[in-house]
């Protein structure tokens, strides 16, 4: 706790440091204004503006409400998002509960595999899912052969729900597992001591305590699915909101107001869902209130329970791995249709991809690295300004940066096009057509995640560690360099990797902003390939490369972080 500083009386050293902080904050504010606030406000402004006259109007929204296609799309989007949350919960709940609360062999592998879907672009998985679960996919062919019926996993909206649930359930798994691990074992032991056990224990004690984690994960999944553009498009589902926005802008043009109206609807629903979730969980996060106890209460499963548990986990893991296996098979298959497995195998697609699509890989590495760097620089600075200074208005930086979470990629893309298309460089090229715009959009989109990682990292560095350095003669800058940065390194790396890995497979904003193929990242190339049946082989090969790329980077960073923590030992425990 620091007293409010009277700046006139503040020591010169402190005043100097404060001036530096003010400049930093101003720089970040400008960046956020230019590349987040202005584009989004532009989109909202256009939605409320009459075409031609430029006056304020609600007519565009009336048009939206009168058009059956849009209303259907709205309901479809909500339905798909809600069902995805439910299905993802069905996947995540048993995995999280079983692996954190029971003596469960392979809990580590389960948790690791839980992350697997995240490192694959969801739309890449979509094609593989169709080959495995589609009407004439592996599973249905086998079902038909042996039992004489098929299950419409992938028909219409079902396909989107199924694909998205498999892709996004880790968000719920991660949050829920963390929440479950944070529950003091004494909470559960007290309930058991009073005669409560089994499902009752889960329902009355465990789940309520883990609720904040679950809701955080679930609302994130809802918003991500609601905003996703590429997966429905690839599954040929067009009557959802995000695809509609994209199609209006690309088919009719930047001047058509409906794209903007849909964007506003997307934003409103996203904000509403995040807001309701936050409101519902207000004051219900008990994790920090609990004391004592210590480790996790792991229980033993009896024989029947074991069989059931391993069965459930195996089934879920099969679903999780399915898209990866499918994509891999697709990338090495000569022909694969109307048969459970491909007819023959080849490596030709990889050859072709490496020769023709090297530029995609290069672009992806470049864009994702830059976006990740921008994010950690912004994330560390914002976290420092908010947590360690008394700068007035510093919380606005945090709020603004975090607000990017509620801005769908397609909206940001449209905003960038509208805002920067008219801005021309001296040689006449439009600002919106530069590849650096893709990087900026990616950085803004991933900033909230990197920011959270940086926050967590800085929060773990006790303020007294800094004060000790200042007390021994290090000024603010030296303290940041010698104490804060080294101690935050793990968190910074984690933030960078999250940004890098997710930016590498992001498509929503990119789809709007790629102006020429030579500037396109891997995800874009993948999307283009996947649209034609002939491109599926090379597309799948590209997808596998993307997965490998992200996986290698994640493992690498994980290794660095763990080494970092090991070096520091159990000091924080």
């Amino acid at each position, binding site marked *: 706790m620091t007293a409010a500083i009277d700046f006139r009386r*503040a020591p*010169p050293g402190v005043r100097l440091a404060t001036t530096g902080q003010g400049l930093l904050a101003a720089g970040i504010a400008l960046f956020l204004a230019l590349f987040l606030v202005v584009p989004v406000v532009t989109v909202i402004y256009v939605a409320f503006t009459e075409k031609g006259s430029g006056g304020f109007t609600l007519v565009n929204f009336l048009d939206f409400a009168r058009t059956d296609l849009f209303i259907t799309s709205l309901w479809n989007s909500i339905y798909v998002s809600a069902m995805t949350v439910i299905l993802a919960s069905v996947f995540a709940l048993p995995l999280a509960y079983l692996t954190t609360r029971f003596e469960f062999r392979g809990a580590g592998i389960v948790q690791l595999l839980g992350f697997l879907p995240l490192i694959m672009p969801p739309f890449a998985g979509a094609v593989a899912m169709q080959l495995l679960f589609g009407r004439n996919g592996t599973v249905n062919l086998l079902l038909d052969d042996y039992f004489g019926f098929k299950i419409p996993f992938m028909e219409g909206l079902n396909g989107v729900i199924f694909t998205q649930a498999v892709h996004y359930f880790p968000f719920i798994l991660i949050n829920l597992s963390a929440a479950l691990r944070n529950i003091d074992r004494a909470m559960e032991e007290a309930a058991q001591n009073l005669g409560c056990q089994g499902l009752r224990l889960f329902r009355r004690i465990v789940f309520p305590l883990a609720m904040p984690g679950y809701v955080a994960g679930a609302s994130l999944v809802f918003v991500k699915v609601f905003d996703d553009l590429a997966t429905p498009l690839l599954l040929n589902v067009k009557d959802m909101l995000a695809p509609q926005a994209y199609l209006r802008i690309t088919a009719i043009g930047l001047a058509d107001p409906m794209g903007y109206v849909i964007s506003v609807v997307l934003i409103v629903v996203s904000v509403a869902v995040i807001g309701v979730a936050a409101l519902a969980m207000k004051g219900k996060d008990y994790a920090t209130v609990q004391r004592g106890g210590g480790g996790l209460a792991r229980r033993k499963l009896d024989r029947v329970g074991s069989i059931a548990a391993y069965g459930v986990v195996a089934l879920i893991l099969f679903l999780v791995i399915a898209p990866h296996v499918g994509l891999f098979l697709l990338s090495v298959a000569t022909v694969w249709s109307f048969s459970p497995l491909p007819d023959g195998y080849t490596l030709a697609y990889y050859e072709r991809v490496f020769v023709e699509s090297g530029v995609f890989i290069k672009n992806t590495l470049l864009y994702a690295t830059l976006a990740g760097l921008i994010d950690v620089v912004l994330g560390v600075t914002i976290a420092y300004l908010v947590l360690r200074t008394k700068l007035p208005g510093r919380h606005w930086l945090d709020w603004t940066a975090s607000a990017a979470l509620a801005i769908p990629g397609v909206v940001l893309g449209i905003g960038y096009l509208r805002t920067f298309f008219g801005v021309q460089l001296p040689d006449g090229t439009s600002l919106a057509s530069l590849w650096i715009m893709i990087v900026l959009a990616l950085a803004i989109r991933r900033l909230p995640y990197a920011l959270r990682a940086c926050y967590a990292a800085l929060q773990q560095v006790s303020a007294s560690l800094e004060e000790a350095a200042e007390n021994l003669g290090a000024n603010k800058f030296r303290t940041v360099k010698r104490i804060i940065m080294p101690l935050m390194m793990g968190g910074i790396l984690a933030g960078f990797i999250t940004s890098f890995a997710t930016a590498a497979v992001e498509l929503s904003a990119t789809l709007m902003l790629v102006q020429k193929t030579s500037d396109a990242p891997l995800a874009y190339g993948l999307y283009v390939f996947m649209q034609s049946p002939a491109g599926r082989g090379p597309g799948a090969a590209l997808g596998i490369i993307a997965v490998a790329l992200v996986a290698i980077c994640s493992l690498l960073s994980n290794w660095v972080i763990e080494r970092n923590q090991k070096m520091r030992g159990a000091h924080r425990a």
Partner: protein
Amino acid sequence: MGIEIRDVNLSYGSHHVLKNINLRVHPGEIFAFLGPSGCGKTTLLRLIAGFNQAASGQVLLGDEDIAALPPWKRDVGMVFQSYALWPHMTVAKNVAFGLEERRLPRAQVASRVKAALELVGLQELGARYPSQLSGGQQQRVAVARTIAIEPKVLLLDEPLSNLDTKMRVQVRRELRDLQRRLCLTTIFVTHDQEEANSICDRIAVMNDGVIQHVGTPIELYEAPANLFVANFLGTANILEGRVVGEAGVRAFEVAGGARVALAANAPVSSGAKLVFRPQHAALGPSGSSGLAGTIVHREFLGSIVRYGVNVGRSEILVEMPFISSATLKDLGENVAVTLVPERALFLAA
């Protein structure tokens, strides 16, 4: 080097944390800020270190006003309650930090690190990381790190609170010896009166942002300035009442009617209460002069016996030496509590 605090005020928002603090710490003495949690003692210490800024007032180190200096320019060594050892640096690196920040030549840094670690008896552990040390060792590293820079004064923020009872007694003796050897002006923040009494030359008792009393441990115990100090240091019986009678035959009448004779010229301010320590009272047979009461409580503590006696509406404690079982008073027995007159204090809040 001495420290002087002049007219210091500090607020967190509307909460007035330090109220017009005036204080002088003499060169070479070990001084304690003692008070309950929230009394402002740590805030005052952090103010001296430069982590808090006063709204008004001066902080003098020697003759120099350091209120305008940032923490890193003050040469005021602080040992943090949590020790604040940097987990990413070895013990030697931690100790070297302040010297490196002062741009000392490498050879000098090495020799002073060695000397500081020797001073606290940890010369063998320079290559370890803080996480590999016990609590007591960590505490000593924190001290070594601070004294390595040869600060003008040493500030200790509850330095013993993270140690177990046995370690605490040992470490506080070590701290005292170290301070004597270095002849280093030291301020020690604590809420534990035993800690303050045992190693400090003088103590400032604080409550609610105000310094209540400054003095040696014995002065504070023997002649507390007010009710708070009397109550905070040791056990005190406090009885409400009023002065009755005229000059010459004055007495203090406590609630319930019992009276204590007052010396003719004893000054008793209005609203003052009668204060005495349990060992300064004795139990006489019922009916003899003194405060009439009934024994409601008895604890046998070996060399002494502590009685709880109901006098009027309050219960007071009386400690008597244990002679034999025959002299013990029983529960329910009516007694008269007699006071050593010169040990009876009349204090206002």
